[in-house]
């Protein structure tokens, strides 16, 4: 089994920042594994501005923000980037197995940083009853379809949840000529940034229903309508407040879940409620020599904050490697 000094899983903003910071702190050998065919992670589909205000003191789009890091990573010969590489196994002794087209590779790492990001909570996780037609999308998938593929998922949409992805997709769909008929939020306030509520909904005249929930999805083959009802402070339906909205598309934006299946496989302790590593401080896990950063560690509002904390993860790994050397 080939031995590597530092293996980083995930080539999004977290993994790239950790790789660069580890190198700056003296790590001589970094293997950066990315499952997609590009570095950059989810930033590649975030074509809206608002990135870099803290880190670069200027406003960039997601792909522009990612590109600054991609260049630095690519310029550093001591960072080996392996694309389309999917880790299938991680042990507590930091042995990794990963698949890529044509090969199953196995490496032993002296330190590992998990920068695996998160996945979206789905319609199923909030158990919206009803039928299961086409037209119900996690908002991030819809974002990928529209921004990367140029695929318009529907004509009339309702968005469940007012997280940032949902808000940004409301505007994005409106800009593409989709009629966004409502954003339905079960809480009393938006989970998203205030600037997104203003710029993505108010500026486009998209109604936002607080303390409402989608109580049923209708449609056999394709979504035809949703039922909406007002809820009280305990999330119980208020009788007589129900109404329906005709639509062919439902985007679900009800939060993110850190992806820590690898850490779990390695025997790391996970908080079952938040799916985050149980550890005394940010970027640490319960397994020595395995670190976590970015959205895998906790869900961040801003990519800039991911960068800042992930740089710390890179330095922590370097320190650990120095101590172990």
């Amino acid at each position, binding site marked *: 089994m080939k031995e590597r000094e530092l293996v980083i899983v995930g080539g999004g903003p977290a993994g790239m920042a950790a790789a660069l910071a580890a190198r700056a702190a003296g790590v001589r050998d970094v293997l950066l594994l990315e499952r997609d065919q590009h570095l950059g992670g989810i930033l590649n589909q975030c074509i809206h501005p608002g990135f870099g205000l803290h880190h670069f003191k200027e406003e960039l789009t997601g792909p522009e923000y990612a590109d600054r890091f991609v260049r630095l990573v690519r310029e550093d010969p001591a960072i080996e980037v392996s694309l389309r590489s999917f880790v299938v196994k991680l042990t507590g002794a930091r042995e990794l197995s990963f698949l890529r*087209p044509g090969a199953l590779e196995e490496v032993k790492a002296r330190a590992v940083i998990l920068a695996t990001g998160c996945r979206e909570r789905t319609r*199923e996780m909030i158990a919206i*009853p009803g039928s*299961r037609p*086409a037209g119900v999308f996690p908002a991030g998938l819809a974002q990928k379809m529209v921004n990367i*593929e140029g695929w318009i998922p*529907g004509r009339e949409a309702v968005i469940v949840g007012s997280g940032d992805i949902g808000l940004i997709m409301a505007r994005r769909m409106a800009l*593409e000529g989709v009629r966004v008929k409502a954003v339905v939020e079960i809480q009393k306030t938006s989970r998203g940034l205030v600037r997104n509520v203003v710029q993505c909904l108010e500026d486009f005249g998209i109604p936002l229903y607080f303390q409402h929930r989608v109580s049923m999805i209708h449609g056999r083959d394709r979504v035809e309508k949703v039922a909406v009802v007002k809820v009280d402070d305990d999330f119980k339906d208020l009788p007589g407040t129900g109404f329906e909205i005709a639509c062919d598309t439902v985007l679900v934006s009800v939060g993110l879940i850190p992806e820590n299946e690898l850490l779990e496989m390695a025997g790391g302790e996970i908080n079952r409620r938040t799916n985050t590593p149980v550890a005394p401080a940010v970027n640490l896990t319960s397994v020595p020599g395995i670190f976590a950063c970015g959205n895998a560690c906790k869900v961040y509002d801003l990519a800039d904050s991911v960068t800042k904390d992930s740089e710390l993860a890179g330095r922590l790994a370097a320190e650990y490697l120095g101590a172990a050397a």
Partner: protein
Amino acid sequence: MKYDVIVVGAGITGAAVARELSRYRLDVLLLEREAEPAFGVSKSNSGIIHAGTQNPPASLKGWLCVEGNRLMREELAEDLGLNFVQCGQLVVAFEESDVKELEKIKADGEALGIRGMALVDRAWLDANEPNLGPEVKAALLVPSAGIISPYRFVYALVENAVRNGVQLKTSCRVTGITRIEKGGFYVEAGGQVHTARFLVNAAGLAADEVSAMAGAPTFKIHPRKGEEYLLDKKREHIANRIIFPLPSRTSKGILIIKTSDGNPMIGPTAHETEDKADLSTTDEGLAEVLAGARRMMPSIEKSDIIAYFAGLRPAAGKDFVIRHEDSAPGLVNAAGIQSPGLTAAPAIAAMVAGILKDHGLRLEPKAEFHRLRPKPAHLFQVTLAETRHLIEKNPAYGDIVCRCELVSAQEVRDAVKRGARTLDGVKFRTRAQAGRCHGGFCTTRIMKIMHEELGLAATEITKRGPGSELIKEERK
């Protein structure tokens, strides 16, 4: 074209009948109204290969279930490359006084020929099913029960039937049937008229309509809805067997079902509905299923649920309806196939072939019947050493499309080559999109592979057939 037999419905029953008939020198046409086989009743099946307990000893379904279970264990799993796991089942009792009920189930089962059953006490359960809750007092262990993927069972039968000469037509709804005076039927389907000497009606929810069309309005289908909830694969080992409560009069109750793909399932509910298209899940159904499952295993949490669906059992009274209709000579009904239909299907198929023979169909074995169907490779089912071997033979096994369920580009391509035409078809064959992210990450990639393999534009790709297109417009 003139066929010896037209089989209506490519669910588990029709698929098994078609495969059974493909042993003989016959021209057989298999018609399916949905976009792919298994898209009707069968797709919502729990995947249990029942041992045959909890059926009345004198019933048709009682002995067909026991015989189907035997055929699966002794022949079909091996021949068709199915991932059948004989995990066994437990029927649990919540009161000491219910133990005599378990003894009755055991005695009824033994009368049907089920072997190896044993009553087990709490100490045995603590050692073998440690997650059972304190309310469970004792259980009946039935070792011959097992689990299988219901749709992959259907696909295997259909593929093997087609390999042996059966013609399959999908998206082909039967719209009219006319009896020919000298014998046989004109069957109007998908805008064409086909002629057949015999008609086998395995049309599931529509079986009463098809039988009436053919001249035998002899029964009525009363759909009974069942909601099922799938748990995260992380909970794979909560149960080592299928766990049943003592059955009630209308259903086998809320079960904890081990599945052959790893995700445990809880359910199903059982509620009559008049709507043959009602596949909606409900808040009430979820509450009922959770309560039932948690009574047996209190550690099951709502947050373990990653998916849910509802299905309709095509009930026509208490028992199966499998018979030649003398009022419509040449028509054989295989209807009312509710639980344990998946298990019984191979035995039903043999029975249907026998009825056809009794009514004049010559069953002359083919010189060359291809009994075996190669087992498709699935990374999620094999060890890393085997994965390495697969990748060495074909690099695309190392190209992961679905991260939650570990499905490679090669498996998706194979699924399309084997007949998948929709995203659900890919999902049922490979598990891609069936995991905890629900296709959030892999859907666009799968659509691109379907585009490459089938030449479909993105706007033509559907979830489950016409009307369920995923996107409305492609901009370049």
